């Protein structure tokens, strides 16, 4: 566990100031079963216009499963999801929703340029062909993540952080009102994390609503208005952003204590997004 579930006592009415507008995400009793195991046991989640909601929890708590079921990638066994007031499906105005999946490091078989990947964000719902001026819009989105000069480069030639920024540009290119991001900064280099936080700050100022899966609040901490913490597929906290668990202070955390397994060279895999 990287975050404690206990809300800060000083900010008592945690639910009160968060009601900013009508709900853009409304999930009730979402259950998801993958293979033989139940991952989510009836999760309720409501995100209002203008909110920046961080979805936190340990590995395996169901964060990614929840956002993936919210956008229809994973089937639900029970519960309902509404995006922008319409039940998940054809009725949703997909132009207003931008989704950033977790980056898969494996390259697809055929090389594709950053511009090509970003341009696919201009297709949604029944729109199966690129609109006029797609090139300019694509370059604009790449500019927002600081990669305009790499538009013609194959994504395979970009670093992991830059590939992640390409995926963010792909979601931004349709100018969404709601963005759903799945671990956008996991394994991303520091300059990319800072560029990402700066971009998000500007968009949130312009009124973007955000649901973001995070391992640590990190660079986004000042933006987050509410945190939802999952544990074993259940919501255990919904309110003010919690403080990190003791021993995991965000800055200046010196990792000094010795590890017994050191001489064998078997270094345990770090499972956090805090890589820098």
């Amino acid at each position, binding site marked *: 566990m990287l975050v404690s579930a206990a809300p800060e006592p000083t900010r008592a009415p945690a639910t009160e100031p968060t009601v900013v507008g009508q709900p853009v995400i409304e999930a009730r009793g979402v259950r998801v079963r993958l293979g033989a195991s139940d991952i989510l046991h009836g999760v309720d989640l409501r995100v209002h216009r203008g909110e920046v909601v961080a979805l936190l929890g340990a590995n395996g708590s169901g964060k990614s499963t929840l956002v993936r079921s919210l956008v229809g990638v994973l089937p639900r066994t029970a519960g309902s999801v509404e995006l922008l007031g319409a039940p998940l499906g054809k009725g949703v105005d997909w132009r207003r929703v931008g989704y950033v*999946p977790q980056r898969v490091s494996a390259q697809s078989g055929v090389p594709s340029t950053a511009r090509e990947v970003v341009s696919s964000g201009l297709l949604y719902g029944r729109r*199966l062909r690129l609109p006029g001026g797609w090139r300019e819009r694509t370059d604009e989105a790449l500019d927002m993540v600081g990669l305009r000069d790499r538009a013609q480069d194959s994504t395979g030639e970009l670093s992991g952080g830059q590939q992640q920024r390409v995926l963010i540009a792909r979601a931004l290119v349709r100018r969404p009102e709601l963005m759903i991001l799945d671990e956008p900064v996991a394994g991303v280099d520091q300059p990319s994390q800072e560029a990402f936080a700066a971009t998000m700050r500007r968009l949130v100022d312009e009124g973007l609503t955000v649901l973001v899966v995070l391992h640590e609040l990190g660079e986004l901490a000042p933006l987050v208005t509410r945190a939802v913490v999952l544990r074993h597929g259940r919501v255990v906290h919904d309110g003010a952003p919690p403080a990190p668990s003791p021993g995991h202070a965000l800055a200046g955390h010196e990792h000094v204590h010795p590890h017994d397994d050191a001489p064998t060279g078997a270094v345990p895999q770090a*499972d956090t997004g805090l890589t820098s």
Partner: protein
Amino acid sequence: MIDELAYMLTDPLMQRGLVAALLVGVTAPIVGTYLVQRRLALLGDGIGHVALTGVALGWLVGAGMGLVPQDELAIPGAVVAAVVGSVAIEIVRERGKTSGDVALALLFYGGIAGGVLLIGIAGGTQSNLMSYLFGSISTVTGADLVLTVILGAIILLVGLGLRSALFSVSQDEEFAIASGLPVRALNIAVAVVAALTVTVAMRVVGLLLVSALMIVPVAVAQLVTRSFARTMLVATMVGVVVCVAGLSITYWRPWSPGATIVVLAICVYAVVAVLRPLVVARRRGRQSDPHPDIPDDVELAAPGTVPAQDGRGTGGGPCSA
């Protein structure tokens, strides 16, 4: 030499063959680009196996109806079986992973074994069978050609007209679903187009080598391109060149057209692979490491000393110990 080429081009048999080869050379790599991108490079192979059963069923029905050329229904049979088979494969793929693998294997082997068995029952000979497995461009009739042109037009219409949408689902299916795109319909479109390509290419290279024409030109193109659009274009050019050149060679040499075309394509791959480092090294000279220069996370030991064992790469890993 010029005379011989002129002779070749006036031969009606060769004319039909060249038109068919040209169509295959254009369409197969276009479909192949999508298949390679979705890591389904061997899908064409599987559809080819299933199509043989369709050919055989066409024979059987033709024989039962007493049609005069017994193989009149072979190509329509192949079209039906290939489309049904490809949609079945797509459904299996969508459902899951492990069990799907075995289901696909059953479909492939069942398709080829069933085809061989049924063709025998319908009164076909070994040479009939061989002509479907390895191609028989010399038997392309006018009616075959018309059907080939129609199917080729459908493939081009879907493969090029829906290019952006097919790119999106092939490149990142999860994102396509989360964009509300009709992902299942698009996936089935790719599968059906692949099935049609198999039947178009059947006469030229045969069912067992169909997949090579979809995949090898794309593999060649990938060596030298960095965009999807360019890969498709280069693959198509390679496809056309090897199909037309390979077929032309067999006008003078008594070689199997299908095998000649595929061997030619693989030779092109080998040549490009050997020459590639010369081209790519020059182009990418400007930067090899895309990462920006940032300070190291760990303190590096001075040269010559043994590095500390607990110098871990991350600053804040879980302190489970």
